[in-house]
């Protein structure tokens, strides 16, 4: 049986079991932020109409929303609470653009400052020092050498900086995303196992929640972890408890990972720009001291 068949079977059963919850799903769809409304609205409409094909299509696009329905037995009074929990899950980081925005802002500001400095300020000082015909301090010589190099190779430097910024963002976003995927996968697995879904089906559905390829417990690979596999060796009730704990552990990791991008870029930007400006000022100031020294 293919993954799509597994999903279709469980969605059909969920629609049949929970037709009465359609109105509540509609309310949830109205209550969530506009950009998250679509999946909940499609689910509400499919459940209200008893339309399995529409339900499968909706579940294919957003499986996570369907987990409470699939994993809850008919008449279980916790269904509404579980739907609400799934709909109002707190974000783990500062949004997908937070890290990229800060990284790009840092790179852009540093590049613009360096470019302005090397094209506008440095030539003036270079001419001044040439007129004096003096031997410049090493720091000044290094700084002045940056000017022509930057003027010749600034497109390359700009490209490298942008690539560096994007690379940084990739590292910052991807490291926690692995933990986030493991957390989402394991949490969905816990809910499904607790709801009495067979382990094989639960693995298929949980992989869809994490947007991951099919997983094999015989050869665990993210988002399926060894801890989750060990938990699945226990009976369903115990397995659900263990999987919930494992999901909490991954959640902690994901939240910790997200915050790195949000706290590190600011100090990094201050350090980079501060050191650049400070060293440049000192480099250009030292020859003035020499001039005064030789004049006196």
């Amino acid at each position: 049986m293919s993954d799509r068949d597994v999903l279709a079977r469980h969605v059909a059963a969920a629609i049949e079991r929970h037709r009465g919850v359609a109105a509540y799903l509609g309310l949830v769809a109205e209550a969530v932020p506009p950009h998250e409304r679509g999946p909940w609205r499609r689910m509400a409409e499919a459940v209200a109409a008893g339309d399995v094909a529409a339900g499968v299509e909706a579940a294919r696009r957003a499986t996570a929303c369907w987990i409470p329905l699939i994993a809850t037995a008919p008449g279980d009074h916790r269904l509404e609470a579980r739907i609400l929990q799934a709909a109002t899950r707190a974000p783990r980081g500062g949004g997908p653009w937070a890290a990229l925005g800060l990284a790009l802002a840092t790179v852009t500001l540093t590049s613009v400052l360096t470019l302005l400095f090397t094209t506008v300020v440095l030539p003036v000082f270079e001419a001044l020092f040439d007129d004096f015909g003096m031997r410049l301090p090493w720091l000044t010589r290094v700084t002045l050498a940056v000017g022509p190099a930057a003027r010749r190779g600034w497109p390359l430097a700009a490209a490298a900086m942008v690539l560096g910024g994007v690379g940084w963002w990739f590292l910052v976003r991807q490291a926690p995303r692995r933990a986030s995927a493991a957390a989402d996968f394991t949490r969905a697995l816990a809910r499904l196992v607790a709801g009495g879904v067979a382990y094989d089906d639960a693995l298929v559905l949980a992989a869809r929640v994490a947007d991951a390829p099919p997983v094999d417990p015989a050869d665990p690979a993210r988002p399926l972890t060894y801890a989750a596999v060990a938990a699945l060796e226990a009976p369903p009730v115990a397995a659900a408890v263990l999987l919930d704990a494992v999901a909490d552990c991954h959640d902690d990791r994901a939240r910790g990972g997200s915050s790195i991008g949000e706290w590190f870029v600011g100090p990094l930007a201050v350090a980079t720009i501060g050191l650049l400006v400070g060293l440049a000022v000192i480099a250009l100031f030292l020859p003035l001291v020499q001039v005064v020294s030789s004049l006196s």
Partner: protein
Amino acid sequence: MRDTILGRALGAIRRAWRRAWATAATRVESAAVLRLVAASITAGVPVATMLDAWAEDGRGGQGTRLERAAGLLRRGATVSEAVARVPGLVQEDHAVALAFGERIGLVGPVVRATLAGDELLDPTARRELRAVGGYLAVVVVSLCVISGFLAIRTLPQFLKIIDDMGTSRPWILVSWLSFMEVLGGWLWVPACLAGMVAVGACSATGRSLVTRPFSRPRRVTAALDALAVAQAGGLPMDEAAVVLAECQGDPVLAAMLARVPGPEPRGGRLCAAGLVDATQGAALDAPAADASAVLHAAAAARRFQSNRRRLVLCRMLGPVMALAVGVFVLFQALAVFVPLVEIIHALS
């Protein structure tokens, strides 16, 4: 995969990597151990199985420590014994929670209460503290580099020029030199701080000794939560306080807890021990008071106060730091430029 040559080679590389980086568990790693132990005990699954599996998923030295702890558990050690014999597996206050939970037979509830109230697991709090620390470190290091360069390379030249010209040193330069002299007398402060950081970075015991006074308010809050769980579990307060005192690694907090057992009223005793304030003590002694709820409320109140203090500190430190650095830089810039202007005037 695990039985192939490549799998074994990868396993050997991973173990070598873990040994090389075996320091101590981070807060998240430590919390993970607690969660897995509590869940395993609740689910009736051997703790060693879950720790071993988590070690496979883990990174760094924590993987090695988890494997050692799992080995000890398989040989019959209790969880708290395994934690005690594998240094760095969990952080000190987490070890206290595990030991206390095990002694009173309520590992799950104690661990849940401990982790629910753990401020250091809150990503917002961590982000704020790290951002403040990051800015502070960056500003201090940049300032030291640039000021040090000016003080070592530039100022001596100025002084030589001024002295050669036979003119008097400008007042701002004299003030700056005096200021730097005074500052030089306090160099032992950053040296001590750097030493403390080095000790903390190299040794888990050293780190716990250095950070203990700062983490005590958080430990008191955790102790109140633990006592509340024990009360809810039907354990008398006196007995719980004695057990908790025995589990503590912080002697000051252990002494506070040891003062709790005694004749009624229990609220008054907790207040005298410095664990709750007078109002909370009175609430505990009120007729038909739910001691567990009152203790949880006391812990929540302490946590709220500590969060507010942290927030104020984090919000204030940025502007204060900017002001201090601005004044410092202005002073230094004037000390460098005023003599330069005076020399040029004299020459012209």
